[in-house]
Each structure stands twice: as structure tokens, then as C-alpha cells.
């Protein structure tokens, strides 16, 4: 039996409500009905706000709806063309993804006769779980804020996120297996290989940062990076680079778009998905990007740290955090028009030589910085 009263009291304690001066006035205008008040304060309750609004579901949803558009537009711009434009022309085609999504939703879903029906349908949905859960551990408040803005506070936040992120490939392998197609098979094997290639340096890079920070709680990390020269990317650029390349590999961005390589294996594991099934896997790629970018922002770019914007109140940190995340995502996206694709063995080779080397340097650097007390 849930004790509603205790939850309400929890909700209304000092610092557990998100305070946004800009809309505070508007909240006051709301009719004085207890139920609505309660709902508003429930939504503004920090753990719920973090999970549902920012950086959780809503932000993710909006980003997913617009980021592919941004990516396509940016790509088009670099490629001397225009990009999605004609759908609702006065908006500049910004809702292109909405059209795509609607199409996906209403399209026929084909499960071909050789596929394993159960898993074939299940895996695209399941992938959402490891992709969504890490967001719960992200703190988007700035270090100046009195109270953190995070769904779940944990001293092992980074480790848990890492563990969840490392689950991604499992589901992709599952999709490839359930598809039962040659291209999917080759693509899946490639995915597995790439997983081996990036996982170790990626984890080492994160480990380096944990050593540097001396903590793995998301709130503490943000606090640690309170000034810009203490940001992870400046203290340990090697780790940042290793992490960035690792994320590019993990999200199958070019030049490491090896498992999906459409000219070679025709979207690899996703070759047989259609309609909403493909819509999901298409979206999951961006979700992965978001999660990894958020992690990168947290570890290397100072999280929600930035100049305080008074009217936004608690959201000030969130704005900075999102801005940084989008910049990281854009950087990942911009790789697409710049690079061709590496070959599988080259990608694997890089993972186990150059990037691992970088990550190890980063680790050593962190240890040295930590042990000689260079940390300021």
C-alpha cells in the first residue's frame, strides 16, 4: 500500500520541486483545484521531472523528432544541397520526421517467413530499455544549484550507465539473428566485432575519468567540474578523444558505420525490418546517440555547468546540459558527410591499437594526476 501522504510530503519538501521563475506566475493562475495542483507539483517533482520531462522522455522525444532533421539539413548543407524542405514549407521542413514517423506507424509490418517471429518483433522494442534507462542517472543541474536534478541518485551512476550501454549490441545481435537473412547475418557479425573493438577502450576511458574524479556519482561529477578548466575534456583530453571515437563506433556513425553499411550489407541487422519495426530501430540509433552524448557531456563537458540564467531557475543547468549534448550529437552527426567507411578489420585494428592506446594513456594520466595531487 503506497502511502500517498508521505509521497506528497516528499514532493513538497524543500528543493524537491523544480522552480522555474518564468512559468511560476502562470502556475499561480491555475484554478485552485487540488487535483490539478497536485498533478503539477507531481510533474515538477524533481525525480519525475527528470524522468519525464528533462532529460527524460519529453526531451528525448522532441530531440528524436528534430535531431534527424538537423542532421539531414546539416549534411545537406555541407553537400551543397537543401535537405528536407517542402513539408510545411513555411516551417522549412522541420517536421519531416513527424511525417516519416506517421508513415512508419501506419505502414504494413512485414515479418518474412524465415524470420523468428517472436524475437523479430520483440527486439526493436526491447532495445529501448537499455537505451532509455541510462538517462535516469543523468544529472542535468549545474554545480551551483543547491539540489541536483536527477531521477535516480546513485554513487555508482556511471557504472550502471556503462553496463546498460554495453547491453545495446546484444539486442542488435538478437535482431540480426531473428531476421535470418544473409545480410543481417553478416551485419550482425560485424556488429559483434565492432563491439569487441570499442568496448574495452571505451570502458577504460570512462574508468580513467572515474579515477580522475574520484567518484562515480553523477551529482559529484558535476560538482567536480564546476569551473570550465576543470572539465574532463581539459583535464584528460585523451580520455575524451577515446570516448568520442568509442561513441562513434558504438552508435555506428561513419567512419565506423561498418555493421549497417548500406552499400555493403544493406543496413545489416535491420535489413528485414519494415514499417514501425524499422521506425523503432531507426529511432533507437539516435537514442543511443543521445545517451552517449549525455554521458559525454556529463563526464567531459561539465554537465549542466554554465552561467546561471535567472528566469529559468532550475532549468538553467538543463539548458546548458542540453546545448552541450546537442553539440556533441551534432559533432557525431557531422562525421557522416566527412568520412567514408572503414573496413571491418581496420575498425577492429583501430579499436585494439590506436584507441586502446589512447585510453591507456588517459588512464595513466588520470592515475598520475590523482596520485601526484595535481588535481586542483
Amino acid at each position, binding site marked *: 500500500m503506497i502511502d500517498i501522504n508521505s509521497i506528497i510530503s516528499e514532493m513538497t519538501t524543500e528543493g524537491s520541486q523544480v522552480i522555474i521563475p518564468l512559468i511560476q506566475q502562470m502556475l499561480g493562475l491555475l484554478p485552485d483545484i487540488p487535483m490539478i495542483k497536485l498533478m503539477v507539483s507531481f510533474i515538477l517533482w524533481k525525480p519525475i521531472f527528470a524522468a519525464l520531462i528533462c532529460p527524460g522522455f519529453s526531451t528525448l522525444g522532441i530531440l528524436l523528432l528534430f535531431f534527424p532533421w538537423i542532421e539531414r539539413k546539416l549534411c545537406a*548543407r*555541407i553537400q*551543397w*544541397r537543401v535537405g528536407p524542405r517542402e513539408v510545411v514549407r513555411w516551417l522549412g521542413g522541420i517536421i519531416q520526421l513527424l511525417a516519416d514517423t506517421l508513415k512508419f506507424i501506419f505502414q504494413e509490418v512485414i515479418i518474412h517467413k524465415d524470420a523468428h517471429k517472436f524475437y523479430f518483433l520483440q527486439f526493436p522494442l526491447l532495445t529501448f530499455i537499455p537505451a532509455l534507462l541510462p538517462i535516469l542517472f543523468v544529472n542535468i543541474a549545474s554545480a551551483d544549484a543547491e539540489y541536483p536534478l536527477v531521477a535516480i541518485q546513485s554513487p555508482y551512476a556511471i557504472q550502471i550507465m556503462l553496463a546498460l550501454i554495453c547491453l545495446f549490441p546484444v539486442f542488435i545481435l538478437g535482431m540480426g539473428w531473428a531476421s535470418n537473412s544473409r545480410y543481417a547475418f553478416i551485419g550482425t557479425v560485424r556488429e559483434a566485432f565492432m563491439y569487441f573493438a570499442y568496448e574495452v577502450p571505451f570502458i577504460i576511458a570512462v574508468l580513467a575519468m572515474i579515477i580522475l574524479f574520484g567518484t562515480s556519482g553523477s551529482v559529484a561529477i558535476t560538482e567536480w567540474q564546476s569551473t570550465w578548466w576543470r572539465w574532463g575534456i581539459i583535464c584528460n583530453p585523451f580520455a575524451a578523444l577515446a570516448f568520442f571515437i568509442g561513441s562513434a563506433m558504438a552508435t555506428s556513425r561513419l567512419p565506423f558505420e561498418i555493421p549497417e553499411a548500406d552499400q555493403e550489407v544493406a543496413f545489416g541487422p535491420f535489413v528485414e525490418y519494415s514499417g514501425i519495426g524499422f521506425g523503432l530501430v531507426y529511432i533507437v540509433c539516435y537514442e543511443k546517440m543521445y545517451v552517449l552524448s549525455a554521458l559525454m557531456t556529463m563526464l567531459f563537458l561539465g554537465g549542466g555547468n554554465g552561467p546561471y540564467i535567472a528566469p529559468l531557475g532550475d532549468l538553467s543547468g538543463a539548458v546548458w546540459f542540453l546545448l552541450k549534448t546537442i553539440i556533441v550529437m551534432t559533432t557525431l552527426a557531422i562525421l557522416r558527410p566527412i*568520412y567514408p567507411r572503414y573496413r571491418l578489420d581496420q575498425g577492429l585494428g583501430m579499436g585494439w591499437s590506436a584507441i586502446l592506446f589512447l585510453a591507456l594513456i588517459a588512464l595513466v594520466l588520470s592515475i598520475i594526476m590523482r596520485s601526484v595531487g595535481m588535481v586542483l
Partner: protein
Amino acid sequence: MKKVAVPEYRVGEKVKLHARAIGTAMVESVYPKTVTTQYPRERKKMPDNFRGYILFEVDKCISCFQCAFVCPANAVRAKEAPNGRYYPTIDYAKCIFCHFCIDSCSGGALKTTKIHDVAYKDMDEMLTLTEEMIEPPEIIREDKKSVEYLIDEKDLHLKRVREVDTLFVAVTPPVEIPMVSQCIDRANCIGCRVCEEVCESGAISSSAENGVLKMKIDTDKCTGCGLCVKECSMQILRLVRK
């Protein structure tokens, strides 16, 4: 012979090349050299000699069949008009827009337009009859601007003008070389009058009296289409200059 060697790059150079590639992308994302013609809204200006849909002028046609003969795709076929003469029709489901027909039309009855963007919902509609080729057709257009390519010594530029480009061009008629059909070998004439039957301008006439068939080519009426020359089984006719 110029030998092209495959380059070797050291690590430092590679970093430089990475930087150059990234730099190029960055520059282009800020100052892109976009060359896009936004088609349904804008329309690229085509030169006047552009080979598009074909228009037809009845008055200039001498029914010489050359458009049908030369068509490599057999898209042009002549159709009998109510006055008994044959005029071209074009099957756009076969037409390859080579405009050999226009280049073969000595009367200048066929002429080009700049129409080239058409979608048909049915293949049967793609046969364009003579009757439909006379007046300029109407196409669905959404363009408000026209785009012209300017190429100077630096780069390609797109010049956008807020005007609706006309798709119909004034064509100068081809050089006139007046030819006329003449008999060059009367002794071999078998008197079959195929020439008379095939002649669509009514220039060849015959009259039989007293066991003698008199053939006559009216050089004023003769358009020099050459059909009689082609059809004469004894090859006794020839086109000569007027």
C-alpha cells in the same frame, strides 16, 4: 606518358589531411556552395534548343513521312486526317527525344518546346494525336521563379529571377532548298501511277487517251517530299532542284 604515383603519408600528414577534410566540411556548413534548383517551386531555364515535347503546324506539313521513317524508336507514326493526308502522331511512351524528326522536317512543321516534366497516369494517354500537337499544351506548374546557370571562370552560380519562364520558343524555319520530282527515264515507266496515288499534294496527274497514258508533274504543286521517288518501282523519278 605521365606517371601517377600512389602517395605515401606519414602520421603527421595524415592528421593534416584529417584536419583538411574536417575543415572543408566546416567551411561548407557555414558558406555552402549550394547549387540546388528547388524544382517544383523554381524551374531551371533550358536553352532554346532544348529537346522537349514537340509541336506541329499543319500548314507547313508536306506529309513526306520522313519523321516516321527516321524515328529510331518508331514513336512517330503518321495518321490519316479527315482530308486524307497523313500527319504525324507521337507516342511519348516510345519517344526518345532525339528530335531526328524535327531535323528531318524540311517544312519546319515540327518544332520543339521546353516541356519535359510530365507524368501520365495511364500509358494509353501517352499517344499524342496530331490534333493535340497543334496548340501548346498546358502542364501543371508550381514554379514562381526561374533559375539560370551562370558559369564564370570562378565557379557555377545560380541566378534566380522571379519570373515564370516561357516554355515555347520561336523557331526560325530551316533553310529552304526547293526540290521537285522529275522523270529521268520515261522509257521504263510502266504506267502504274503509284506516284500519283502516293502524292499527297496532288502534283502528279495522269490522263489516258488513245492507248497512251499521259503523266504530268505539276512543278508548282510539287513539294519535293520525295515519296514518289521512293515508291517508284522502276526508279524513274528523281528529286532535282527547282
